[in-house]
């Protein structure tokens, strides 16, 4: 076998074994998407019930809560970037980081200080590699976040929120994550977590279209869409109920973001691996063709050598 043929054969073999890995990863991701989507769905009754309850308390009572009232001056914002632990997911991690960078740019333009928090190893390494300060990072659960993880993050964020600005505290908190829209579309987006904007039923219609003046357009409000809540009796009292509800509401929002990110990660990985498998197939095809051409060329050359040799032998024989 000629040298050229041997080179192609080696390339085909290595591409074939890579293809097997890509295919396996694609199948694994595909099977995990369903589970991740299921978890997003399973968590939604809790989130809906909480949203309803928080809206009800906020609309019916005039309790001012630190979590819902806009601070007079926002000097520092916390940005939580939710990324993946592992790569092999195409542009998934790059997209969410780009969204985060965009948000950070907007915040700094508004004269706000930014504190970074990260979830997932990829987000963490992106910032540590660039020597950017990370206040805290959580890793190891990007593919299967649990309620406890959300609670842990929520606790840290709330604590920093309750700390004064002078002591390194923050005045508002943003979440940057990838929203799972479908297996083919995932959208990176940011949302403000605290201060919460609980919109009254009457205001909901208005603020729906018009972005609030000042600050960033907030795409997320605990909307009480034209819904009239019954007159609840609060036990023990509206303030206490709100006190107990809000941290839970925040945890559930964080959990929802984590679950969405997990589903998006699997979907992105499946897509990326599908593309990789297709590319490997394409490569194998190209190399097989090249190997065939090389083999054919070799055979043709051998034949012409034999024919040429025979011809010259016959010519020299005729001379005798």
């Amino acid at each position: 076998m000629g040298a050229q043929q041997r080179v192609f054969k080696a390339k085909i073999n290595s591409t074939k074994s890579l293809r097997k890995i890509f295919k396996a990863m694609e199948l694994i991701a595909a099977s995990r998407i369903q589970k991740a989507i299921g978890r997003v769905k399973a968590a939604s009754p809790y989130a809906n019930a909480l949203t309803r309850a928080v809206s009800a308390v906020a609309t019916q009572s005039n309790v001012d809560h630190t979590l819902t009232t806009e601070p007079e001056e926002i000097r520092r914002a916390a940005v939580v970037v939710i990324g993946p632990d592992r790569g092999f997911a195409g542009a998934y991690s790059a997209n969410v980081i780009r969204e985060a960078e965009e948000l950070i740019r907007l915040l700094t333009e508004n004269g706000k200080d930014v504190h970074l928090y990260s979830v997932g190893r990829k987000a963490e390494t992106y910032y540590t590699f660039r020597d950017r300060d990370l206040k805290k990072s959580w890793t190891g659960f990007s593919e299967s976040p649990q309620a406890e993880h959300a609670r842990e993050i929520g606790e840290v964020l709330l604590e920093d929120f309750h700390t004064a600005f002078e002591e390194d505290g923050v005045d508002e908190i943003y979440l940057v994550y990838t929203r799972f829209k479908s297996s083919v579309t995932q959208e990176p987006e940011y949302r403000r977590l605290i201060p919460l904007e609980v919109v009254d039923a009457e205001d909901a219609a208005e603020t729906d279209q018009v972005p609030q003046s000042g600050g960033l357009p907030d795409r997320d409000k605990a909307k009480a869409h034209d819904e009239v809540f019954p007159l609840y009796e609060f036990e023990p009292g509206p303030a206490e109920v709100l006190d107990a509800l809000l941290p839970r509401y925040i945890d559930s929002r964080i959990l929802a973001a984590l679950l969405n990110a997990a589903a998006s990660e699997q979907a992105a990985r499946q897509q990326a691996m599908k593309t990789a498998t297709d590319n490997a197939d394409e490569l194998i095809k190209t190399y097989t063709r090249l190997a065939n051409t090389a083999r054919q060329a070799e055979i043709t050359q051998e034949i012409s050598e034999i024919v040429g040799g025979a011809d010259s032998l016959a010519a020299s024989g005729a001379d005798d």
Partner: protein
Amino acid sequence: MSLNVTVVAADRSIWSGEAKRVVARTTEGEIGILSGHEPVLAIVAGGEVRIVTADDQTVRAQADGGFLSVENDRVNIVADQAELV
């Protein structure tokens, strides 16, 4: 008339169905809910929630922290962690 009860935990739905009576423990003490109860939003102190279903079965669930809401005969028990006992 019966109550429409749902029990949900942070990451999943635990139980839902028709019931005659629900007893839960709030921070103020035990609360018993029958059909026609006034709307209430209360903090659940943790402990056992007893649900007497429409066919007189008793469902017991352990609920840790959270709240319960009652309105128009719909009872939502929302707990951080909950499981059927």
